[in-house]
C-alpha cells in the first residue's frame, strides 16, 4: 500500500483520556492527516482496557454520523468498549458530509481499505490488544477486503451488519455492458467522467477506473472473500431489508458462517430494531 501511515497530530484531549484510562463513554473527534495530505477524522470513545476495541465503518458515501453507525457506537461505548468510528475521506480533506451520487467520484476502493489500515494502526499504537471489526452495508466490503489483505493478530472478529454487494443488480444486462465498457476505457487510458449504476446510485459520476475499483466487488467476490477469511465472522441481517435482493441472503446463508436475522428490521435497523441490533452485536462480541 502506498499510503504510509503516519500520525501527524492527535488531540491533546485524547492523550489525556488515554493516560487516565477513562471509562466514560464520551466521544472525542480525532483529526489526522494522511501521508497524501488528506485530513481524515473519526469519533473515538475510550473504553475499559480489558475490553476489546470496536472499529465501526459506515456504508457507501456516508460518514460516521450515519445514525446506524453512531447509535451502535454509543451503545458499545456504554458497554465499556473502546469505539473508533472513522469517516472515509473519499478523496476529500475533512469530509463531513455524505456525498451525492452526482458529484465526481475519482476515489478508489483501495484507498478506502488503506484508510481502514490507518485507523487500525492508530488503535494499535494506543496499546489496544483486541479489535472487533464492525461494518455497515458496503462498509463491510471494505472491511472484508481489509481483513484478508492485512491479517493483524489483534483483529479477533468481524461482525457484518446488512452486508450487501457493491454492484447493484449485478448480472443485469445493462450493468454487464457498463462494466465491460469501463474495462475498455481503462485499457484505452480514458479518464473522462461517465454515468454508472453503482450500489444505490442510479447516476454515479466517476472515471472508469474509479468505478471499476468498487464495481468489481460483486457477490461472488464477496462470497469468496468470506470463505477465505481467517477470522470468525457473524452476519446480522434485517429480514425486511429491501436491498438484499436476488436471493443474496440465501447465498450468505449457504456459507459456513453464523447469520443472525432480525425480524421486521430494514437495512438501517430503524426504530425499535435498533435495540435488537445492539443486542445482537453485543452478544456476537461476547461469544
Amino acid at each position: 500500500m502506498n499510503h504510509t501511515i503516519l500520525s501527524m497530530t492527535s488531540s491533546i484531549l485524547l492523550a489525556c483520556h488515554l493516560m487516565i484510562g477513562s471509562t466514560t463513554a464520551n466521544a472525542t473527534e480525532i483529526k489526522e492527516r494522511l501521508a497524501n495530505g488528506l485530513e481524515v477524522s473519526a469519533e473515538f470513545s475510550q473504553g475499559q482496557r480489558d475490553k476489546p476495541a470496536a472499529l465501526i465503518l459506515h456504508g457507501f458515501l456516508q460518514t460516521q454520523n450515519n445514525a446506524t453507525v453512531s447509535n451502535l457506537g454509543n451503545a458499545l461505548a456504554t458497554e465499556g468498549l473502546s469505539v473508533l468510528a472513522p469517516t472515509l475521506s473519499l478523496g476529500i480533506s475533512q469530509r463531513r458530509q455524505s456525498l451525492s451520487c452526482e458529484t465526481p467520484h475519482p476515489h478508489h476502493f483501495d484507498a478506502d481499505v488503506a484508510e481502514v489500515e490507518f485507523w487500525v494502526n492508530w488503535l494499535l499504537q494506543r496499546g489496544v490488544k483486541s479489535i472487533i471489526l464492525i461494518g455497515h452495508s458496503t462498509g463491510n466490503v471494505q472491511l472484508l477486503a481489509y481483513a484478508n489483505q492485512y491479517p493483524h493478530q489483534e483483529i479477533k472478529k468481524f461482525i457484518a451488519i446488512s452486508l450487501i454487494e457493491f454492484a447493484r443488480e449485478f448480472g443485469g444486462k445493462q450493468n454487464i455492458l457498463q462494466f465491460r465498457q469501463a474495462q475498455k476505457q481503462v485499457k484505452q487510458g480514458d479518464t473522462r467522467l461517465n454515468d454508472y449504476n453503482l450500489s444505490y446510485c442510479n447516476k454515479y459520476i466517476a472515471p472508469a477506473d474509479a468505478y471499476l475499483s468498487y464495481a468489481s466487488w460483486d457477490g461472488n467476490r464477496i462470497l469468496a472473500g468470506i470463505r477465505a477469511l481467517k477470522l470468525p465472522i457473524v452476519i446480522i441481517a434485517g429480514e425486511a431489508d429491501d436491498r438484499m435482493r436476488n436471493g443474496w441472503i440465501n447465498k450468505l446463508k449457504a456459507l459456513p458462517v453464523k447469520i443472525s436475522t432480525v425480524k421486521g428490521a430494514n437495512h438501517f435497523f430503524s426504530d425499535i430494531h435498533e435495540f435488537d441490533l445492539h443486542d445482537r452485536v453485543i452478544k456476537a462480541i461476547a461469544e
Partner: protein
Amino acid sequence: MFEFIRQPGLRLSITAYFVIVLGIGLLLFVALGLVVSDKGRQLNGEIIRMQRNATEQELNTALKLATDELEHTKNFLLNWDEVKQQLANPNYYDYWRDNRLKSSAQISKTVSGIELYSIGKERLQKTPKDSLPARFDETLLGLRAVNLGGTMLLQYGLAIKSEGHDDVLGYVVIQALLFPALQHSGALQTLTPDMISYSLPEAKIISIDALHTYQHVVMTDIPAAAGLSNLISRTLRDFLGIAALLAALILYLVIYVYVRPLRSMSVYIDDLRQGKIGATASARLAGIQVKEIVKTRQSLQAYHQQLVESTAVVQQSETRLRTILDNVPDGVLSVDVTGTILSCNPAAGKLLAMPQNELIGMKLADLVKPLDGQDGEAVAIRKDGSRFPAETTCSAMHDEMQAQIVILRDITERKNAEDKLIQLANYDPLTGLPNRTLLRDRLMHSIHYARHHKRLVGLIFMDLDRFKNVNDTLGHQYGDALLKLIGERLSSILRESDTVARMGGDEFMIIVEDVHQQDQIAETATRILQAVATPVQLGEKNVLVSTSLGITVYPTDGTDPDRLIKNADTAMYRAKELGRNNYQYFTEEMNTAAMERLEMEQELRSALQNNEFLLYFQPRIAMQSNTLTGVEALLRWQHPHKGLILPGRFISILEDTALIVPVGEWVLRSACQQLRSWLDNGGPKIKMAVNISARQFQDQELVNMLRNILNETGVPPELIEIEITESLLMDNLQTTIQVLQEFHRIGVLVSVDDFGTGYSSLSYLLQFPLDNIKIDQSFIARIPDDPSACTITKAVIALGKSMQLKVTAEGIETTAQADFVRAEGCDEGQGFLFARPMPATQLQLQFFKTPN
C-alpha cells in the same frame, strides 16, 4: 323684467334665489381655484422629496439584501465538501462546475459567476467566458464593488482553507451584476435602472461599505404637478368671463320660459278647482309651447277627468253597498265611541221591532246585552220587551269619529238546535231522564262536592226483576210504558238534589247527594223498592214488578265514578242472587266473589272444548219391586285444578252466559250415547232422565236438537225423560206448552222436577202433556216427623195418580221415608238410600246383571 321677484306670500321669487345661488357658486369656485393652485405647488415639492427618500431607502435595502445573499453563498461554498474535492482534484472541475454547482439550490440567484482558483491563484477553468479575473489577487479578498467598462459588479473573493488549519486549499470568487443583483434581492419595487446614476470612476475598486456614496437617485420635478397652478389660474380667469355671460342668459330663460307660465298654471289650477275649465288662464296656457308646461297642463286635465270618473264610480259603489245593506238579514249598525247608534240598516229595525229612525240616537247597550263568558253572544231586546238570543260582531271603521260597525244576528234557531243536541247527548229519549253520560258527569260533580264538604255520596244501581217477561208477554210498547212510569215514580220520590238516570234497558241509577249518614241511602233504597212494587196498570193488565238494588257509597267503596258504578253493579247482582226485590250494600267480598265468578266463567268457556265435563248417573228404583227403572243424568265438571265440581256451583253461570245451550246439548247427547252403549251391550231397558234448563227452552233449536240426537244415537224416544222445573212451566206458559207438545210428538217423556216448590196452577198442569212428577226432596227430607210435609207428599202422590202421572220421590235417604212413599203408592224413588250419583261403569257393575 323683475316684476315677478316679489310675489305675494313669497319672500323671494325663484329668480332672486337663482341670482343669489349663482353668485355664491362663482365666489366659491374662485376661492377653490386659488387654494388648489397653491396646494399644487406645495404638493409637487413634497412628492419629489418623499420619492427621493423612499427610493434611496429602497436602494440601500436592496443592496443589503444582495450582499447578504452573496455572504450566504460564500458560507455555503466554504462548507461544501465538494468544493474542497475540486480544489484537490481539478481534473473534473468542468463537470462539477457545469452540473453540481449550477444545480445546487444553495447558490443564490443573485450570483452571476463563481470561479475557483488553485493554491497558486490560477483560475481552474481553462477557457474563461465571463468577466471574472484570470488570477486571484489580494484586492479580490472580501466584498467590493467594481466599475468595469460601465458595468457595475459586486465581487466576493476568499481563501478556502482546510478545517481547523490555516492551510489554504484554494480560492473562490463570487460575482454579481449590481443592478440585476439588486433586483434579485426582491426589495426593488419602483426603482428603474435609469433612476440610478453612479459616480464611480471606471475600473475603480471600492469597498462595499462606501458604495452608497457613489450611487445617486435621479429625481426630476413632476411637470404635471408644477404646471397645475398655472393651469388652474388661467382656467379660472376664462371661466369667470364665460360664467357671467351664461348666468345672464340663464336668468332670462328662467324668467321668460318658466316663471311666467308657472303663474298662468297657478291660475289655471284655481279655475279647475272652481270647475271653470277653459277660462282665461287656460287660454293663456294654450299659447305657451314650453314642453314641461304643456305636459303638466295635459296631466292636470287628465287628472281632473279621472277625478270626475272616480266620483261617479264611488257613487255607484255606494249605491250597491246601500242595496246590500238594505237586504242583508243581519242587522248592521254603526255606533260612535259612546255607544250611540249613528245609522242602521232595515234588518236591524226589523230584528229589534223598531223603525230605523227610532233606533238612531239610542244606546246600543240598552238594546243588546252581552252574555258573560260567551264570546260574541248576547241577548237582544225588542221594542215590546221580548228577548231573543243574538250574535254580535264588532269591527272598527278607523274614521275620525272612531265609529264601530256592529253586526247583529238572530241565533234563536241555532240555539234551539244546540239545546236539542245537548238533550240528545245527555238524556234518555224514552224517559227524559239523564243518560249514562250525564250521570257520570253529575256523579263526578257530586264526588267533588262531597270531598270538599266531607259528605257521603250514595250510588244505587237498580235493575227491574224479570222485566224481560213484561216485554215478552205484553210487548215492547208496554215495556217502554213501564220504564217511563218507573222513571216518573223514581223522580217523584227523590229529593231535587238527587239524580235518577236510565243506563239502558231496565237499568237505572240513582245518585243520592249530600249524605251525612249511610242510613239515608238505605231509606232512599227502601222508598225505591216500595215505589216500584206498587202495581202498575199497563193497558188492561195490572202488572206487579219488583227491583233489585245495589248500593255503593263514596268514599268507602270507591273514589272515582267508574269504580263506584262497577261496584254498585256488583252489589245489585248480589241482590238478584239473594232472591231479588231487595237492596245490598257493596262489600269487598262481593268483588272477590264476582272475580271468582268471572274466573269460573272464563274457565267454563274452555271446559267443553277440553272435555272437562262428565256425567254421573243416579238410579231411580221402582218402589214396589225395588228394581232399577231408570237413571237421572247429572252433570259434573272435572276441573283440572279444583277437582270434581258439583253443578250447584256453576249451573247458574252457564245459564247467565248462555253456555247452558251447548253444554245442555252435550249432556243430552252424552246421556243418549251412554244409554245406547248400555243397550248395545245387553244392558236393561231403563229410562234416561235429562234436565233441561229454562234458558234451553228459549232456544228455538231445542226440539230439532233433540230430534237429531235421537236419530244419531238410535235411542228409543220412550226411554228418554226430559226433566223440567215447575217454575219453568209457569214462567212462560205459551212457549212451554208448544215445546212440550213437540216433545210429546217425538215420543219422549216429560217429567216435572222439584214439584211442590212452585205455584203451579192445576188448570195449567192439566194442559201440559206430562208423564211424571218428581216430589221435591225438601218434603221427603222432613218425612215422617213433619206432618205438613207428610200431608203435602201424600197430596202430590194422590194428585199424580188422579192425573194418571207417574210419581217419583226425590232425596230418599232413610228406610222410613221409603216406606212412607211406598205406602202412599209412589211409583219410583231416588236418593242416597238406594244409590248416590255414580259414573257409568260403577253403575254397570252395581246394577246391571252380568252376562253370566
